[in-house]
């Protein structure tokens, strides 16, 4: 058996329960790790064999659901996407995400974050399309070229894990600021050739605590586990709002299904 197979690390987990006024402290657990062990695997090992009361939120274990976001060794990361071997440290510190209200241990409250996301009306809006469809033949589809899709594609990879929001220094001081996730989604729909509600979204973000409070620290793009560049989206959106850059967006044509 090689040394690597016997390797153990210390997992320092932030513990508290805000509903019971528990004073925050760190619990230490010794966890055996392999080369491929992720922080989530280690936490689940702790729950199974050491302390089942450790509070974590997780679901897919494959960086698709965005549930297991936490601060790992000082950096917002997805626990399921962070291998302990890559941290190159014998002590792994797990803390709840900053900039989020905390509930218990590593679980934080996403209500405010989702509310900002919802405010951006993150769906296609197009006045040309009726929402009251009685007959399947009334269904329409939009024609989009590959270039049209490329304009917003990377921003549609967002899994709403909240890592960018927790890394944003503006959110830390201004909770009314929508944050990088919501603003990059505003850009995602602004750049989408199927959407024609530019004015509505601009009115939402063009206010005192809106897009102009972004100081372009760029930490949101650094921590994104899906390769989205929210800082780029925000700067492009700012450019469009100031009239400095052209979107060259041409609204998609509608293609009606032919009646059989």
């Amino acid at each position: 058996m090689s040394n690597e197979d016997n390797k153990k690390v210390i997992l320092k987990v932030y513990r508290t329960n805000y509903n019971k006024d528990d004073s925050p402290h760190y619990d230490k657990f010794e966890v055996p790790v392999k080369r491929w062990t992720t922080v989530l695997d280690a936490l689940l090992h702790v729950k199974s064999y050491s302390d089942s009361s450790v509070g974590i939120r997780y679901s897919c274990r494959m960086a698709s659901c965005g549930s297991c976001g936490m601060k790992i060794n000082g950096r917002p990361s997805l626990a399921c996407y962070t291998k302990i071997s890559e941290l190159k440290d014998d002590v792994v510190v797990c803390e709840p995400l900053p900039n989020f209200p905390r509930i218990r241990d590593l679980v934080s409250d996403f209500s405010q974050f989702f509310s900002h996301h919802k405010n951006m009306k993150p769906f296609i809006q197009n006045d040309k399309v009726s929402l009251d469809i009685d007959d399947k033949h009334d269904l329409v589809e939009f024609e989009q070229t590959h270039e049209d899709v490329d304009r917003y594609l990377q921003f549609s990879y967002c899994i709403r894990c909240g890592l960018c929001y927790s890394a944003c220094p503006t959110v830390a001081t201004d909770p009314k600021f929508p944050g990088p996730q919501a603003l990059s989604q505003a850009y995602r729909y602004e750049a989408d050739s199927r959407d024609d509600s530019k004015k509505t979204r601009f009115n939402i973000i063009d206010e005192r605590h809106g897009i102009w409070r972004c100081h372009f620290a760029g930490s949101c793009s650094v921590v994104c586990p899906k390769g989205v560049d929210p800082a780029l989206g925000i700067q492009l959106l700012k450019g469009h709002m100031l009239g400095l850059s052209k979107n060259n967006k041409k609204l998609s044509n509608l293609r009606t299904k032919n009646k059989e």
Partner: protein
Amino acid sequence: MALLRLRESQITKIHYLTGILSLFAVAIHIIFRLIMPFGQSLSYENVVANYHNIFYVILLESILVLISIHGFNGLRIILIELRQLHRWESTITILVLISMVGVIAYGTRTIVIASGL
């Protein structure tokens, strides 16, 4: 008050524009100082003579107005991030506007008196 009803994008446009223009105006101002030895350029006679040059007076007034608008708006941005209450934001905006007008008025008065206009 029309100024309070400006959208943030309009204020930002003014902020960026005054920032860029003040860079140019200050650069010209510094070049003025460098066309002769620095100590000599600040001698009493030279300074009074500068104030009697109409182009220099316009330059000084531009610097005063541009930097005041840019600087006070920067201060407003910092202050409204501190608290997220509508009343606080409006109060800060009004106070900053009053201070800005005050500084511009006082500076303009100095320029006008010194230039003997």
